[in-house]
């Protein structure tokens, strides 16, 4: 069986410096994978390159064995929360409905069925009470849940999420994790850019350690070791004991 994601020798460059070099990994179906690495390691860039949002210099990206464009219906994307203008005149439900736009096709409007799906998905993230709220009046955690609900209605097989845990409250973090586990149980594949090293082992069964190149990738127990982390983060890690790793604050 083909893996949902298969990356071979991917290189991405901004101007003259290579941001990602010779990236190679694959992600098995039904896995929860964290992409981990220091600031500037190219984590978001990697996701964007896979989704075709930025051009690559060379390499091969396959989603279920096909180029991305042939399979874009199978992919759901949760961008960073800061990437959109929350003052946009639209409601939470409406944002979720946007997740259906890829399925609706040209010249057609979202129908009753799409509306029902959007409502259901808002309910799943516990936001049904806020459906008609203007999005700037939601808290950070609530905004993130709306984004997740939007990804859910995309009804994808593979999900990419860019730092979904940044700036959210503990309750939302729990809700997100529950959702990710549900997705995994349904046989879907989820890739998350993740910052918090403390929760990696608890949340994710697969890891990709990234610092411009792939340091290691695979099952969390094998990959998430002190030695590999040290290699990924260089000297910026302070080790208290195994399991408690702190990233040194540079500023």
């Amino acid at each position: 069986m083909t893996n949902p994601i298969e990356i071979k020798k991917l290189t991405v460059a901004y101007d003259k410096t290579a941001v990602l070099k010779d990236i190679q990994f694959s992600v098995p179906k039904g896995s929860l994978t964290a992409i981990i690495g220091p600031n500037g390691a190219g984590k978001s860039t990697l996701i964007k390159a896979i989704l075709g949002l930025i051009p690559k210099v060379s390499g091969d990206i396959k989603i279920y064995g096909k180029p991305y464009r042939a399979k874009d219906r199978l992919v759901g994307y949760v961008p960073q929360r800061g990437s959109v203008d929350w003052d946009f005149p639209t409601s939470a439900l409406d944002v979720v409905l946007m997740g259906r736009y890829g399925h609706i096709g040209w010249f057609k409007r979202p129908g009753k069925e799409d509306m029902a799906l959007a409502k259901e998905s808002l309910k799943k993230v516990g936001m049904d009470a806020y459906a008609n709220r203007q999005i700037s009046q939601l808290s950070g955690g609530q905004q993130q849940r709306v984004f997740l609900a939007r990804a859910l209605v995309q009804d994808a097989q593979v999900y990419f999420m860019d730092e979904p845990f940044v700036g959210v409250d503990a309750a939302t973090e729990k809700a997100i994790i529950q959702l990710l586990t549900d997705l995994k149980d349904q046989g879907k594949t989820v890739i998350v850019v993740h910052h918090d090293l403390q929760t990696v082992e608890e949340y994710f069964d697969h890891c990709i350690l990234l610092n411009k190149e792939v340091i290691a990738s695979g099952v969390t127990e094998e990959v998430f070791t002190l030695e590999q982390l040290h290699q990924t983060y260089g000297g910026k890690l302070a080790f208290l004991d195994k399991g408690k790793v702190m990233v040194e604050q540079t500023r």
Partner: protein
Amino acid sequence: MEQIGQMLLAANTQWVLIGTLLLGLASGILGSFALLRKQSLIGDAVAHAALPGICIGFMLTGERSLIILLIGATVTGLLAAYCIQYIASASILKEDTAICLILSTFFGVGIVLLTKVQQMPSGNKSGLDSFIFGQAAGMVSSDVKLMAGAAALLLIVTIIFFKEFKLITFDAEFAKGLGLPVSALNFLFMTLLVAVVVIGIQAVGVILMAALLITPAISARYWTNSLSKMVMISGLFGAISGVIGTLISSLDRGIPTGPFIVVTATIIFILSILFAPARGIITLKIKRRMTNHQLLREQGQVK
């Protein structure tokens, strides 16, 4: 050629040239800061917003006294700059919308007033409409001297506060931490920006004045990474544009100065974007091709 030679000898033309040279220099320098502070288009709005001020100045005094007109322009220009910042900070509207809004409505008021001025018995000969596209060659020598003097004054003030402006442009928080009066400096900078726009509109015109702030500065950015060098190069480009534009427009009466200054500045910009040593498009293209080759070669070796 002979014609140009004769022109250069005329005392008034020499003054006009000195005036536009100083103006180009001052706007190039202030424009660099405005560019880095992402405020260059505020200059555009301020220039358009000067028109109602000019008209009000004329209506109040009933004569074309440049000083009064410039004071009027400064007042409405500052008011426009203030409105833009207030709208952007107090509502969900972003700065670009605020700029565009203020620019068009102030200019609309300006046109309404200009029409009224032209209906006045003295207004017909006022020549206020030359403020729209600029007419450097037609300036009388006292006006030119005023422009040159004001530009020189702005230059001196900017040089005195150079390091403070540098700091608030780069890192306003840090400047605050150092105990600098950041909001006063911001206001000073805005006043200088409004002033340079205002003294420039007579030569360049309200619509195209923004170009003299933006184009030399962005061209200069291509040649250096150091602020002090950027400011100097930008000033130089501004001065060259001012002088060449004025020379062309003084070949014949009725040729507006502003458009030729802008075209000169843009030609300098095109040359910069193509051929600047470190960042020019053509220069970069060659370099990038080389690095891509290198990247691929390195990968080949890894394999």
